[in-house]
């Protein structure tokens, strides 16, 4: 069970959170102006990287806030967590210990 640092509440166990998928995929301001390809990309195309991944979590059983995290999908270690709306931090995964 992961240990996740909520930007509001601090470190909490994973069971307090709900995963929210890849982060920084903003809903287009005017969906109707998009082609089918562009819209499908917004809906379904995902980076799914093997490595650092910016993703959303919601502290459902806590403060209720959505926030973002950067996590290494190979080690599952978090690089950072930050509030929704803040830019993705430019970080590389921490070296071990």
């Amino acid at each position, binding site marked *: 069970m992961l*240990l996740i640092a909520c930007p509001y509440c601090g470190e909490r166990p994973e069971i307090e959170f709900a995963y929210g998928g890849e982060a920084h995929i903003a*809903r287009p301001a005017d*969906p*109707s102006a998009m082609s089918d390809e562009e819209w499908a990309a917004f*809906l379904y195309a995902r980076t799914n990287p093997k490595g650092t991944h910016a993703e959303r979590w919601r502290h459902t059983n806590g403060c209720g806030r959505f926030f973002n995290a950067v996590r290494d999908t190979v080690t599952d270690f978090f690089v950072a967590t930050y509030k929704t709306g803040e830019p993705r931090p430019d970080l590389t995964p921490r070296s071990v210990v």
Partner: protein
Amino acid sequence: MSSLRTASGGRIDRTKTLRFYFDGRSHTGVQGDTLASALLANGEYLLGRSFKYHRPRGVVAAGSDEPNAIVNLTRDAARSTPNVRATTIELYEGLHAESQNRFPSLQVDIGAINDLLSPLLPAGFYYKTFKWPASWWQRVYEPLIRAAAGLGRAPTLPDPDRYVGRWAHADVLVVGAGPAGLSAALAAADAGVRVVLADEQSEFGGSLLSEPTEMQTWLAEAIATLAANPRVTLLPRTTAFGYFAHNMAGLAERVTDHLANPPPHLPRERLWQIRVKQVVLATGALERPLVFPNNDRPGIMLAGAARTYLNRYGVLPGKRIVVATATDSAYRAALDLRAAGADVAVIADLREAPGEIADEARAAGIAVRTATSVVGAGGLQHVAWAALAPVAGGAPEAVPCDALLMSGGWTPAVHLFSQSRGKLRFDADASAYLPDVSAEHERSAGACRGVFGLAEAQGDGAAAGASAASGKPYTPSAATPNGGGWLGLMPNAPAKKAFIDFQNDVTAKDIKLAVREGMRSIEHIKRYTTTGMATDQGKTSNMNTLGVASGALDATIPQIGHTTFRMPYTPVTFGGLAGFSRGDLFEPIRMTPIHPWAAEAGAVFEDVGQWKRAHYFPKRGEDLHAAVARECLAVRASVGMFDASTLGKIEVVGPDAAEFLNRMYVNAWTKLGVGRCRYGILCREDGFVRDDGVVGRIAQDRFHVTTTTGGAAGVLNMMEDYLQTEWPELDVWLTSTTEQWAVIAIQGPKARAVIAPLVEGLDISREKFPHMAVAECTFAGVPARLFRVSFSGELGFEVNVPADYGRAVWEAIYAAGRPHNIVPYGTETMHVLRAEKGFIIVGQDTDGTATPDDAGVGWAVAKSKRDFVGKRSLARAAMTGPSRKQLVGLLTADPKTVLEEGAQLVDDPHQAVPMTLLGHVTSSYYSATLGHSIALAMLVNGRARIGQTVHVPMPNGAIAVRVVKPVFYDPEGARLDG
């Protein structure tokens, strides 16, 4: 059989004798014994049969690494546990154990024929055979294989024992309470931090428990010091079985298994899930067997285990002993046994020049042969001789013995380290994998990282413990491998019947065969031979596998690598992992405030999500259909009442509330007046219907939103998602009020008459309180929100009252309705009534592949809105057109025929399989009101097919059905006003 119990010594209490039973025979042991030590003391060598060849097997080890002495332990009919290691079972009065995997008895086992057939049963034989005739696999071969395989028998009765869980936190978790772990815990505790110390054994001390006398004072003092410290938690009988991400460990504590009469308030096991800042692994090392033919004969055991039996349990492994070793440590066993009066015939040391300890042995009168290999053993059900041969070559000599002790060296227990994703490095000097690069905040200390001397282990533990407490980076001192050790087949020994994995009967020959057949990866070798896959997960075998594979592959061990260490370290009880999650505590059972009334009224309940909902209210002798027919007729004729409290409710408040709902729902909300409500449809972003419900405008900036029962949590989460992450600028907030309100629907022509006397402060006349009105009022004396809505097609109201009043208000309505013969009705009647009207149930008539238009609620979509969730997706080509399935009604020719929900629709029922399927029946009931059956269906291009006939293929012939509009009753809506 002669007793092998020593006269004195050990950590047992000889004054407390305990009676126990093995395979029905009665024996005695003493307090402090394990089942294995007690059986050995009684001269019982034969404890089990192996998996494949049914070879006789005895005790090899003294701890949880035991591969052979696996028994069934039975407390009573319902408390039977298969596959328990006799070496870890603490003896208690009246213990019953039975051997496994043998028929008719342990001594005479017909399965042992497999041993004779073993040339036909090499690794992977089953992949090559049993293919013809094809039908025999399932009927003949597989049942035979299955019956032969498996070890113990699964229990057959429900387990009555309790298991508890416990979450915990600490600064430092120390796993293993040997000298290294104890020293680590002492050092960490000294620093004042929170420490947890766990060891799987009944007593702390680790290898010290196997030492004769020295160090016992230190051990006692160390334990006392720790026990006195309130910041320290001591967990004996607790196995750290898993090392999980972010420094969480799973620990299984056996609370009562060692007690003859467990007190009822105590659980059998406790599952600890501990999150810590730092972990110190001090899990020690496991001794390796030597690999030579017949090395599995009862009486052949690890030298260290023999020393444990002697020094800890006061049991001699035999009277005439041969020791075969590749390390110094076996000499300790020989010396101790010799001192205890056993005849140590010879020590056969593989090495040319053993250390000083060989001189010590010689001085004690023990013959030491160097550069000598053990190449075989004799005896049938018990070892009778050991074959010793010079490494340089030459004929083996059979040395008679009744115990053959072996030591191939020590394998550091790096299981947890590796589970944590730490990287191992092969150390040639230690012939072992050692911890190299950590992944977690963790450090290893003592024998588990190759630091073997006692003082060294203590020092190492102390340093690791102190640094763990400080949390500072730590560079351990260089490990000092003790040298020696041997991996794989003994020099000059044949590979046949030279066992590597005892339990799964994997021999050195099997490993070579696997390599010959192209299995070059160690993972393939493991899977092809099943080495390391038995209940001990290769604790004693994995390194010897590598040794043999290395030769066969002509590759070094680091080139080969190792298989993956996985949790659990030792097997963990399912019940322990499930904990309280059983029966009523399996999951919350959610009940409405009105539930007790319904239960008293005899309602039958159904599960909807975690809710219990009244399904119907049978009167004496009524079944579902009779009750529902009565309930339906009553609503249509007079009035019924329904508990709708489980509906999800969300209070949407703020100046931007209407704007927010505009963006979320397909409907338009801006023009909805205060005091009015509207049926809303919520789509997912992909355009498919997600949920529906009535939304009422309580004030300019306040909406009362309802959702389906099952959708409540998901819809709120979805709304929060959009609000927080897409439109944080909107001034609107969402609060779940599902449980704030008890909701009672009153439906039927007499509905107004029933509630009128209960309503204060509101004119509920047809004119003043029309269909789709909402208002706050006082109802039956309590504050309420009253909705004029109908899910039945009749005049209807839904009253929301604060939940604590739910039952009282329900009773008040029931009383007020008595003169009108009001009936309470359940979800089934609700479903029939709405189906008669063609109202959909999201999740029943829609299934996640339906658009609003498909579901017949396209009218709700506000075409003029620039955007809403799902709008863009609905513009995709495939979302419209004649290929879409659409909601329709179906009528059968025979009014009594009720179609089966889920039945399929086709044009031509005689077409060949696979048929072209056009849709399916989503809802189907007998309508007592209409006197015939009705059904709703999703049908390809359905609205265009109204008036046509389609067919429902059934096993006993197809049923022709007429496609009709999905409204069967009162299509004009005349009854809405009562």
